[in-house]
């Protein structure tokens, strides 16, 4: 399995050093094209007017908010089932990114909702489940921050991530059901029968740009996390050795 080639953190770091500059360049290019297209090419929507431009960041951010949770859920499986040494590093690095993208999609969503619906927020099923997702991300981050030992914290967070992965669809359905009892959804959605290509293309380019941004930041954050664990294990060694002199470490920091 190819993933196992990068089980060694040092080899993984070497890969990151090679890949990261290309990712950054591709990401910048995609954003340049995407932003140009979304401001200069896309026409106003006949229904939404210029606010359709909010969609060009809102929709990709919402996609990423969900994709990021998938990455974390797969990483959680990696921690608990396959015991891949980098899995909990990946999960921990993804959580703040997921929270940030969820936050972007919530904020841009309400900024779009105010002119379109007349209110910043409704307790609509889709919005509410994104809010619950946001709380899940923050809870996971808090769990990581509270536990000092990264290995233990990684396992605890993996369990919570997987429970959340099973639970989020249930939350979505129950909120759907709860909501229809009280108030029919009156959401104008972008995914109508036809999306004009002039809108679809910038949307797809922006989605690509956001995805590249996610992977760039994710790899960089994973590298930081590996370094953080190295620092931690080296500090423990530093504290243990009264006269630090060229002793050799045996423990890998990120296993």
């Amino acid at each position, binding site marked *: 399995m190819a993933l196992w080639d990068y089980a060694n953190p040092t080899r993984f770091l070497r890969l990151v050093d090679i890949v990261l500059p290309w990712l950054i360049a591709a990401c910048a290019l995609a954003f340049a094209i995407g932003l140009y297209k979304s401001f200069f090419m896309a026409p106003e929507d006949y229904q939404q007017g*210029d606010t359709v*431009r909010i969609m060009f*960041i809102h929709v990709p951010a919402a996609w990423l908010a969900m994709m990021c949770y998938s990455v974390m859920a797969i990483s959680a499986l990696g921690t608990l089932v396959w015991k891949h040494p980098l899995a909990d590093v990946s999960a921990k690095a993804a959580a703040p990114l997921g929270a940030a993208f969820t936050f972007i999609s919530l*904020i841009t969503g309400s*900024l779009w909702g105010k002119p379109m619906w007349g209110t910043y927020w409704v307790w609509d099923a889709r919005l509410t489940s994104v809010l619950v997702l946001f709380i899940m991300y923050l809870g996971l981050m808090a769990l990581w921050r509270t536990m000092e030992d990264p290995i233990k914290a990684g396992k605890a967070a993996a369990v919570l991530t997987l429970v959340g992965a099973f639970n989020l669809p249930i939350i979505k359905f129950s909120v759907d059901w709860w909501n229809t009892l009280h108030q029919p959804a009156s959401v104008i959605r972008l995914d109508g029968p036809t999306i004009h290509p002039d809108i679809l293309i910038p949307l797809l380019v922006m989605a690509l740009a956001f995805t590249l941004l996610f992977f760039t*930041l994710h790899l960089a954050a994973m590298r930081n996390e590996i370094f953080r664990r*190295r*620092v931690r294990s080296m500090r423990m060694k530093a504290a243990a050795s009264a006269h630090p002199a060229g002793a050799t*470490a*045996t423990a890998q920091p990120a296993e």
Partner: protein
Amino acid sequence: MDPFDLGPHAGFIIASYTVTFGVVAALIAWVLIDRAQQRAALNDLERQGISRAGQRQDKS
């Protein structure tokens, strides 16, 4: 069409892009600052003579 005429809801559009830009900038800053901190800590420890299992990170 004029890209700088964002219609009656310009404020909301500008706010959306500003918030997004701010959050992304914060993420990038977080990654860079974190990296600098961990690097500094690693260098500090190496100067004290604490070494890891023979591997050295390149200083890119």
